[in-house]
């Protein structure tokens, strides 16, 4: 069972604001999914190599040739608050 405190902790890690009303629902849903997922916990896979990538590729190299990047103004265009060729963000607050 995923407890209330764990839900709040994970939401903080994921930078997701969650409402008080949602905590219980999320706790129930995550617990249900993890209960199903836990079926693989009992498999004895000692010594089995984990797979992170399925195609046998190693050190994909390319010549280090400079190519043009996208123009700065095009990249900034979709930003919510572009200023002076940069992304403006709210203050991070007192550190």
């Amino acid at each position, binding site marked *: 069972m*995923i407890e209330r405190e*764990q*839900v709040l*902790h*994970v*939401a903080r*890690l*994921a*930078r*997701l*604001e*969650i409402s008080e009303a949602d905590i219980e629902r*999320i706790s129930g*849903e*995550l617990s*249900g*999914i*993890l209960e*199903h*997922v*836990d*079926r*693989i*916990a009992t*498999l004895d*896979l000692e010594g*089995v*190599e*984990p*797979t*992170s*990538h*399925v*195609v046998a*590729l190693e050190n*994909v190299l*390319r010549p280090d040739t400079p190519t043009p990047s*996208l123009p700065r103004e*095009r*990249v900034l*265009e*979709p*930003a*919510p*608050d572009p200023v002076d060729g940069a*992304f403006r*963000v*709210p*203050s*991070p*607050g007192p550190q």
Partner: protein
Amino acid sequence: MSELHELTVAAALQRIGAGELAADEYFDAYAEATADDDLNAFLWRAEPGSRGAGGEPLRGVPIGVKDLFCTEGIETTAGSRILEGYRPPYTATAVRKLGEAGARLLGKTNMDEFAMGSSNENSAYGPVLNPWDRSRVPGGSSGGSAAAVAGRLAPAAIGTDTGGSIRQPAALCGIVGLKPTYGAISRYGMVAFASSLDQCGPLTRDVTDSALLLRTMEGRDPHDSTSVGIAPGVALPSREDLAGLRIGVARDFSHHAEGVEPGVAEVFERSLQLVAELGGEVAEVELPHAEHGISAYYVIAPAEASSNLARYDGVRYGLRAEGSGELVEMYERTRAQGFGAEVKRRIMLGTYTLSSGYYDAYYGQAQRVRTKIADDFASAFEQVDLILTPTSPSVAFELGAKTADPLAMYLSDYFTVPMSLAGIPAISIPAGLAEPPGGGSRLPVGLQITAPAFAETALLDAAHALERAIGFDARPGCAG
């Protein structure tokens, strides 16, 4: 709808080549049809009269593109509020290659938000309706692409498949959907969900059109280091029998599996009879870890998603929550307002399983299961050339039927997830019609054919032979 809307892409190209059909007329017939889209299949549509740059061999062919692919200057939302209004500064490689071959962008198709879903009900822009029965889902996450092709609003479309998102909607809509080998097509410009699994592929009316689109899009791309293409290319399918081929069926991972609807099992059994009639030899294989695919997938995919979706923070593109105060508060509010319930659920799940103390128990174990699933397929392919399964345990279900139970929704992908984890190609072709469990008009059932990595030509050839033998000619509104 006219007779033009019934043509496959290959048939239309033949007419265009023979001077019997103008490419512009072909495109406009579809652009006019999408203007009356009552399936909510499209999020953006090209106007009739839009013209491309020309090119061969797909001259003038209108293509629906899942809204997960970046299209320069054209809104790309990934089905999410957080990207509403986003106009990318560049175009995805797969879309660019189609354009260079002469295809024209017909529209951007609706989808589950960030490709997370099996019913298209997770779109921030409303669900897509299944053209066979508008009270039912088209499947997901490429539901808009599948519904558009089945509903004669597009001759062909592209989608993405992370755990079944091309194959399952193709099955539920009665069309052909191909997930190529991981690495066959560049992922550059495809909004990332789970990077080790995501793969682009075609949704088409028949197997030949699937091959046509695949051979246009495949290839190594310097912008995606994991792309390798398919050597030595993809041939157009011509096979009419299965003589000399061994076709594997895994008893516990077939129509005998728990939860498979009787109608789906019946259609699957008929397909196995056809294999024998076509000269193929049906052989039993073992895939002992395939049943654990869903568990491994729902650790790996959300873990990768929680990392990939960290970029939506209100800084570089998309939504920023108003009046947010300081920086972290802005991140948290923006993501709370911009993401839908399923996306939040997966971010939470992925963040949890990757968090300190849980990483090896969940993510590490899931990656080891992934190895076992890939090994199972490799052993099976020492004995057989191809493996058959149903594509989906069920026919199209009713809107709302599974929205309250995330796990029930996830199990829709039972037969499609293991191939994604193993990175191997699989295609769904329409194999017949079946009555849904509660009764009602008959709905399409998909047959999934799986091949070893990079064996797309052999896969499409066998699919072509089966397609001919099945002779599926039902279509929405005329199920017979």
